[in-house]
């Protein structure tokens, strides 16, 4: 079996994988980083969003072998020494999650949104940019508020 090597949340990891292994399977099953979720088979829901070389990507549609040498950040890599990232803090403060299953993907997408669109995000930008992430609990109301607040807080911190 081929070997894949990548840096995940700052740690260099290497493993033998079947060629058909998806990045999300590698993260969840090989590394036991179960914060990245799978909500669909068709790249619609965004629960599996992680950062690959700094860009938001859906890890259910990437082969692990395609990420050879890549730097990956997952939801587990955001909080530093137990202190929540401002975007995580904003989701908590604004009740931007209920069941929490879509939340890791939402937060990773939100950070990618800030990277691309800046810290000053208006409602329609957030809503439009979030169309690749589905939530069934919140009606998106508090998620949008959380992302706006989190983006602003990142500017201050």
């Amino acid at each position, binding site marked *: 079996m081929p070997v894949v090597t990548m840096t995940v949340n700052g740690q260099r990891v290497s493993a033998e994988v079947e060629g058909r292994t998806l990045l999300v399977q590698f993260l969840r099953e090989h590394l036991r980083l*179960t914060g990245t979720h*799978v909500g669909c088979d068709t790249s619609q829901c965004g629960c599996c969003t992680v950062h690959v070389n700094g860009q938001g990507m859906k890890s259910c549609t990437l082969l692990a072998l395609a990420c050879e040498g890549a730097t990956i950040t997952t939801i587990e890599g955001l909080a530093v020494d137990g202190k929540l990232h401002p975007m995580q803090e904003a989701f*908590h403060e604004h*009740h931007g999650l209920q*069941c929490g299953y879509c939340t890791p993907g939402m937060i990773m997408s939100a950070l990618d949104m800030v990277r691309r669109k800046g810290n000053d995000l208006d409602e329609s930008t957030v*809503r439009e940019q979030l169309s690749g992430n589905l939530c*069934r609990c919140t009606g998106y109301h508090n998620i949008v508020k959380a992302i706006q607040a989190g983006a602003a807080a990142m500017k201050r911190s």
Partner: protein
Amino acid sequence: MHDAAKSTHIGQPVRRKEDQRLVTGKGKYSDDYCVPGQAHAVFLRSPHAHAMIKSIDVKAALEVPGVIMVLTGADRLADGLKPLPHNPMSTHKAETPLENSDGTPPFTAPHYPLAHDRARYVGEAVAIVIAESVAAAKDGADAVEIDYEVLPAVTATLAAAAPDAPKVWDNAKSNVGLDAVVGDRAATDAAFKRAKHVVKFETWAQRVTGVTMEPRAAVGAYDRESGRYTVYAGSGGAVKLKQDIAAVLDVPADKVRVLMDDVGGNFGTRGEVYPEFAVLAWAARRAGRPVKWTSERQESFLSDYQGRDLAVSAELALDADGNFLAMRGSNVSNAGAHTVSYAPLKKGLGIMSSIYRMPAVFFRARVTLSNTMMTRPYRSAGRPEVMYVMERLIDIAAFECGFDRVELRRRNLLTEAELPYTNPFHMTYDNGDYHGAMDAALKLGDWAGFAQRRDEAKKRGRLRGIGLANYVDTSTGAPRERTDITVRADGTVEVVIGIVSQGQGHETAYAQLAGDWLGVPVESVQLITGDTDIVKVGGGAHGGRGMRMASLVIWNATREIIKKGTRIAARMLECDPSMLKFVGGRFEQDGSEKSVGLFEVTKAAQTLADLPEDLRGPLAATCDQVHHEASFPYGTHVCEVEVDPETGSVQIVNYAAVDDVGRAINPLLIHGQVHGGIAQGAGQALYEQCFYDAASGQLLSGSLMDYALPRADTLPFFKTEISEVPSNTHPLGIRPAGESGTTPALGVVINAVVDALSEFGVKHVEMPATPERIWRAIHGMAPPASPNNR
């Protein structure tokens, strides 16, 4: 009790305790369980809507590398597994009773966890392939040869109920499993005869599904030495799931342990035992190792319990002034292939007339079986459907007879003085300020300023419409709940309760209750819900029962703890118990500085040598209570939409909701529940449908590319307001909040869409109000050629 229960945490928007783990990826959902030695399974499902299973050849599959075992319905039969113990008829005392008109019992048929002779819907599981990996199991499944003989099938609701429809069950007289009537036919017909106006409405509240973001997943395990099964499976509740799995396995309930931690959504979808959960437990015994299965999304669409699917034909009679005189009609609910639940029909019918004065009704109510996945309660069992019908009838009456929509509602809306009110379906509403909620919602939604916004939209080439809908919801879930509360010497309070959270935030809300009533910080309360070796009794989260039942048992148990604690504290302080009062977590002696804290008392309870038997051990109490009285959430929603006449596309641009919860424990969570509920209702109104092709019986909406969900860019910010008129049928005044968002949302969104199209004389648009349907309505064309789904 209301005053005594006043406190510091209750009523506050306390931020959730569960968030810390969930925002850092440390939640534990069902697929996150990894049991040592586990094998992986996939289910083979029928590709036909109705077929005889003539033979299953597993030989080639067993030769696929990594495949361990294939189990079929014939193996299940040989091993003597029992049917899933569904009880399709809800029996809550507060509900409208429904019985077959001919006196026979409702039709039921055994639902076996793997079909052995016949598959009755696309997606019915017929075999399980167990392998070293999911990929190997899939390869094995591809190699299984099944010889089916395809039979005639029927999926559409009214077609299935027809006498000449292909029968789902050969031993039934027809597909109609329940055929009841409710009301007073003579009084209703007389009222219709003298009515000045009669309006008619025929509709289909289409089939939708829960789409919990976390797909179902489970691990079954079996310990040969103890003969015990363990099933790790996120669900609506742990205790009933344990009992149901034990019933299928035909073992005593204590031979099954069910475990769950975080559960990614429910909405009713997870409220009933699933065939797969029992099969995994059995497969683990047969394979001699744990067996894990995780549903893929396409599999969820096929095999998760679905919701709604009610065909209604209704008429409303009014006098010249617009007073409602009577209502009559027929409801047909599509239960799917197995007799899992008739509750949506029953629970909806009971409040068909909503919170309006309705002197007489007569309805025929039927459940039909069909070759589709089964339905069960979905975010307000049967209620959003009937509220939609009532609110559409009122708007149609206003449109056809020249009444003002608001005044027509106000004229017929029950006043506080008329409550409690027994409606003509025999359900008795508690108290409430229905007019107050409606006035507040009209204000919040700026009904008065609408004309100006409509004119402004017109200039931009948009058709703007506004609608309103009143509603009532019921809360007749499982009436028994239990809590075991223990004050621990380490400064924590443990609350064991049989209501599992699927996102509602119980860890926080219940901690607010116990924290307040025991005078301890919210952080020190620990909730235990998802392990049946600890939790012995409990009804799970459904039917608006979570806060309603939890508050009662937590209140009573904490009172008992304080009572016991007072006696111990009196010994410690060497005074009479009557001299002590419990304030802010301390037992204080009247007229002195002396006091002891709750945690000191629990330590003493474990160490003092001279305590009577009933005070020994940690300070703890149990409350196991039955509460049959329902409290009825109510309120009003106002919705505004804009339609693009060129394309027929519609956007919700304004949404205001006023919902009465009796008493708000955590407004942050309540607003969140309402937001999510509105989105699910708006989703049904505009986007969603489980689309079964009538000719083939195939589910065409089998992925998130085909089944349209609301997305962030299809919804606005909502204006939500909480009303608090304490319910007089609940000791703490509480009405449920979880279903309020959805219940009026179907009707209010469609009312707004139809209003936007009023200049074209459009009387109604069916759900989902797709651009095609709206565009056709604007152009005076017939609705899209129907594949006869209704």
